[in-house]
């Protein structure tokens, strides 16, 4: 059993580090070697002719400008499909803010500073953040998340530093988000991130879930304490809308009562090997 322990967190850190290195190294390649095969950051990333566009940024652009541009929709396709099938995995496994927050967590653990989640808001705030942000953007007539999004700002600040040898002032938002982590883990990600809310909404019928096996659970509560989003996997919240499938609770469980499971496609199809999925 100990061999299985902490499996996902190691994988996750590797993926996050790789994802962060992409946006860290790219500006240098573009600036000093004019190597533009990989371009941009997590607002729009281009790998050769394969383009990704962040779904919320794309949606804002369409809603506010009231025009549709087909390449934009195609760029949003893969991120949207990823969210539909796997849920908020962008947040849990790729987002540079979550990566920096995890580094912050590790640093605090190293310094033996203990935290409690001081501020808890109703989860509904998450949806109000998304709807409010979209409505406000449409009223003002300018998309707001495109220049205020913390994940995007990390990329932009790195690019600004490399290209223009300066930092943009709005980078304080990133610092603010990381500071909020000191009081409540992932306060921004939990309650305020409109992009996270959109991905969670898209992932409401996702296939990949954290499922609890009732008979093996001792109700020790380790998983609840491990969850960076403050969810309670012991109460089955690993299958809720808000879970970003990071696997922290699966790692924390000593009895393997929690595991990632694929939900069968369609309500009637039930595979014999996984009778407890539903």
């Amino acid at each position, binding site marked *: 059993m100990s061999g299985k322990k902490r499996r996902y967190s190691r994988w996750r850190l590797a993926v996050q580090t790789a994802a962060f290195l992409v946006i860290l190294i790219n500006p240098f390649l573009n600036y000093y070697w004019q190597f533009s095969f990989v371009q941009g950051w997590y607002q729009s990333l281009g790998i050769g002719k394969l383009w990704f566009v962040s779904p919320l940024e794309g949606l804002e652009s369409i809603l506010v400008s009231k025009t549709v541009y087909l390449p934009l929709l195609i760029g949003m396709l893969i991120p949207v499909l990823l969210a539909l099938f796997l849920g908020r995995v962008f947040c849990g496994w790729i987002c540079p803010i979550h990566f920096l927050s995890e580094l912050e967590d590790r640093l605090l653990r190293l310094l033996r500073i203990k935290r409690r989640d001081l501020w808890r808001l109703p989860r509904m705030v998450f949806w109000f953040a998304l709807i409010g942000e979209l409505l406000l953007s449409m009223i003002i007539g300018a998309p707001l998340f*495109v220049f205020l999004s913390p994940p995007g700002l990390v990329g932009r600040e790195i690019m600004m530093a490399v290209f223009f040898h300066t930092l943009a002032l709005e980078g304080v938002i990133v610092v603010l988000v990381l500071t909020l982590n000191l009081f409540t883990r992932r306060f921004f990600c939990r309650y305020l991130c409109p992009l996270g809310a959109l991905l969670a909404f898209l992932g409401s019928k996702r296939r990949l879930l954290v499922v609890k096996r009732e008979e093996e659970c001792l109700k020790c509560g380790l998983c609840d304490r491990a969850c960076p989003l403050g969810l309670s996997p012991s109460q089955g919240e690993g299958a809720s809308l808000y879970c970003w499938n990071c696997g922290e609770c699966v790692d924390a469980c000593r009895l393997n009562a929690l595991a990632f499971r694929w939900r069968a496609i369609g309500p009637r199809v039930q595979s014999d090997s996984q009778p407890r999925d539903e």
Partner: protein
Amino acid sequence: MGSLLLPRLAHAGLLKSPVGINHLRPPGAVPEEIFPAKCIRCGRCAEICSYRSIRVLDIRYGVYAGTPLINVEEVPCYLCMKCVDVCPTGTLRRVSQEEVRMGLAVINRRQCVTWRGLALCRTCYNVCPFKEKAIHLDQLRPVIDERFCTGCGLCVHGCPLTPKAINIEPVYAFERKSRDVREEEAL
């Protein structure tokens, strides 16, 4: 109306467009009225620009933060047309070099030494990528043809005078267009 309600914001530049004389959007840009709406601030145009003509604005420009801008007095646009190929939102449309209309070069004849008869300078003529079309010499004095001028700003950059005797006016950026025209252009 907006400037009436929020005079201070307008003066601080939070609502005012950063586009002005010699401060231009990259080639193929949609009209300024929908530019900040369409652009997702991904910065890819600035990353691909080999000449570092395109700069990215910061939060001091309010809702225009993160949008690309070219100051042709510092670095003009060399019309390499790389940025229009990487824009994922259609904010920079894929136009050819000749179709670029970033603005229109306007000569200040009271400032220009050639027009004043003080010297025989023709730097703007020499550096223009569309010589004899966008700019020609009329009795050795430079004259712009608005049918061909792309507004790339090479002439502004080249002009040896301070203040510049030739400037790019962003005459096309603030044109009001009907929705139908805009949609056609967006496609």
